[in-house]
């Protein structure tokens, strides 16, 4: 059962990897390059099943993006997973405070990614 998943990451490499792993598992993948772009894309795409976002991005970073989504967009209740190489508790806490549902530590393998999605989306 495929979900519609938005990935937000400024790295083309990471976007490609996410697309490969997610569409391989039967999900529909929508992609954005940074927080601002992510907001624009969500406005067009409507409610998605899961959002996966990077933290360090130009224009609007992951924290800003999550806050924006949680602050009252159509995706206010959409699970958001934060994708980052930074595993320090401080960064996770900050993402959580912004409203992140969970996180995935890079480098990830597809199984890890899909398990995290399963944990936040039916």
């Amino acid at each position, binding site marked *: 059962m495929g979900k519609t998943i938005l990935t937000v990451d400024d790295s083309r490499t990471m976007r490609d990897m996410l697309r490969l792993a997610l569409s391989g598992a039967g999900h529909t993948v929508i992609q954005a390059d940074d927080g601002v772009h992510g907001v624009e894309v969500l406005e067009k795409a409507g409610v998605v099943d899961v959002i996966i976002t990077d933290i*360090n991005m130009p224009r609007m970073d992951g924290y800003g993006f999550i806050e924006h989504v949680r602050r009252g967009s159509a995706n206010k*209740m959409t699970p958001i997973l934060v994708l980052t190489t930074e595993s320090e508790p401080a960064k996770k806490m900050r993402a959580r405070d912004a409203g992140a549902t969970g996180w995935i530590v890079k480098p990830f393998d597809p199984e890890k990614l899909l398990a995290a999605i399963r944990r936040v989306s039916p």
Partner: protein
Amino acid sequence: MDPMEAIKQTYFQECDELLLAMEEGLIAMESGEADSETINAVFRAVHSIKGGGGAFGFEILVGFSHVFETAMDLVRSGKLDPTPDVVKVLLRAGDKLSDHVTAARNGGSDAVDDAEVKAELAKLTGEDPEDAGAPAPADFEGLAFAPVMIDIGDEEPAAPPCPIWHVRFAPHAGLYAKANEPYLLIRELGMLGPIEVTADLSKLPDLSALEPDQAYFAWNVALKDCPDRTKVEEVFEFVSGDCDLEITEEKVEAAAPAAFAISAPGLPSLDDDDEPAAAPVAEAQPEEKKAAAPAAAQAAPTTVDLIKQTIRVDLDKVDRLVNLVGELVITQAMLSQRILDSVQQGQTVSAGLGELEHLLRELQEAVMAIRTQPVKSVFQRMPRLVRETAAQTGKEVRLEIEGETTEVDKTVIERLGEPLTHMIRNAVDHGLETPAERVAAGKPAEGTVKLSAEHRGGRIIIEVADDGRGINRSKVREKAIERGLISPNANLSDEEIDNLIFLPGFSTAATVSNISGRGVGLDVVRRNIMDLGGRITIGSANGKGSKFSLTLPLTLAVLDGMIVAVGEQTFVLPLSHIIESLLPKSADVKAFGSNGMLLNVRGVYVPLVSVGRLLRVPGAKYDLANSVVILVESEGVGRMALAVDAIVGQRQVVIKSFESNIGHIDGIAAATILGDGRVALILDIDGLVAGCREGTGGRPTEYQQALGA
């Protein structure tokens, strides 16, 4: 292609872009112009290189970028002041990172010696360089997650008896606000082993007092057959802090386990409501049911690739477009010639043709523009080059770059790197003095090299200027005489002396250094530039510096040419090699040697060659005195005069290579197609000159003649 292999390609492409962005940012930091976004961009570049590198298992690359990233993170967060010394270390780290990427791209065979830079970075961050040097720091492997987050259905029957885990789980409102979902967590628990779930609804208030965004439920879950407490804890990893969680262990005797009934007694059936408090449903086989969201999501198109501002186009496709438009231009020219030939009263026709011509020219320009790129990609390699050359030669150098957004054809850009590298090295190595010499001469110890690009008259002008000592003309002259390149009594202008350094084998350095030396001289630079249809000159002021000026065509697909007639054929001479055309008097033509000819051009004797005779053109006249003479400049021999029957005109022609079909022919660079549909050959001046050299004797004499002995 294997999808991962394709992504790896993307990764390296992206690395190139990131490395450029990083260097650009670091240079801005060096000059003190960096704002926080610039510093952030540098951090992100290093961070992204590390992130992708981790995915492909480039451990050494990841190890180094981690140290670098840590330092950048300190700068970014204001904990480390980007003083000039700090930025110097960061710049060197940038160079090393670039080396690491190259090494990873080449399969990691060439080891990069980064110990020194790493130690300096560690000094900045206060990290232990040994720790920092570890290829895979602890926080990459297994920190937040155990290698496998959840074992699905991994029910090991044997082993010691598992305890029963009693989990009391009471979400706070914040858990729902972050879109976490108790039902999913309980489902996860169910994947660890058989569970028995009871909902605790005791906190549920009266409907009138119910706040939709508050949390009222709690659950007690008993989990069997899960040996590992951490697995249970992991399930709640995302929500710790947003719930009350108690996990207690009940030891079980090895005896047969009791069957677990799973039920959710007393849970109100409110699962269609999308209020968070109402969502949880725990069942043995959870129904696959989406929350309210998907309906809307499915209404949206399934593939939503939105808002792309750039496209990546296969160069072959663009080339095909360029060729097609070129042909269109030819067809148009052919058409107009035929119509004008056959229709006398072609007034209206010719007006229409004029418009077509105008349109086509515009189309051609637009298509060519697809291929153009800013020179930035080449210019950006220069700061590192300057740093390294400065370090090798013990000089202090500041590089100023201007006009890096100037656009030029991709092929030109690709072939610009080598000559530019050489000129920059030359400027630092030979042009600039040592700091001590500079101070003695009353100049600042730090020398300046300025690299600039601009469009001028349909060509691109690139200049490399230094504020060094300038060309020592008497030394150059001495050397040229010593090498037999000019005669001792040759009367040369300053400009002519300066340009002697482009002659083959000329080197002004007292000792050939391994910086600019390397077995190739400026003659090679000049050859490269002329191969691109460009010219290079040097200007110099004693004690004040030198300046190389390079003019290049904006594209290699077309050429500005002079169309000439020889016998039955038409040839094209590249305008970049032409100095002037003249109608010589027969008294100016002198026989020389066995069958050579010299032409007196205002007192200077220049070898005179008949193109018709040289190329054995059918129907060519050999009457040199009545020919039109075109004075050309060749890199090898200097000036020479080419005799042709007539000049037809000047035109931009589309270059058509035929080498793939017939191989290289001396004296012919390529072909083009003229307005009448016939093929005309584009002459290769250097090749022509080389071809007739055999007939007219030794080089030195020719140099002397050419340069005005």
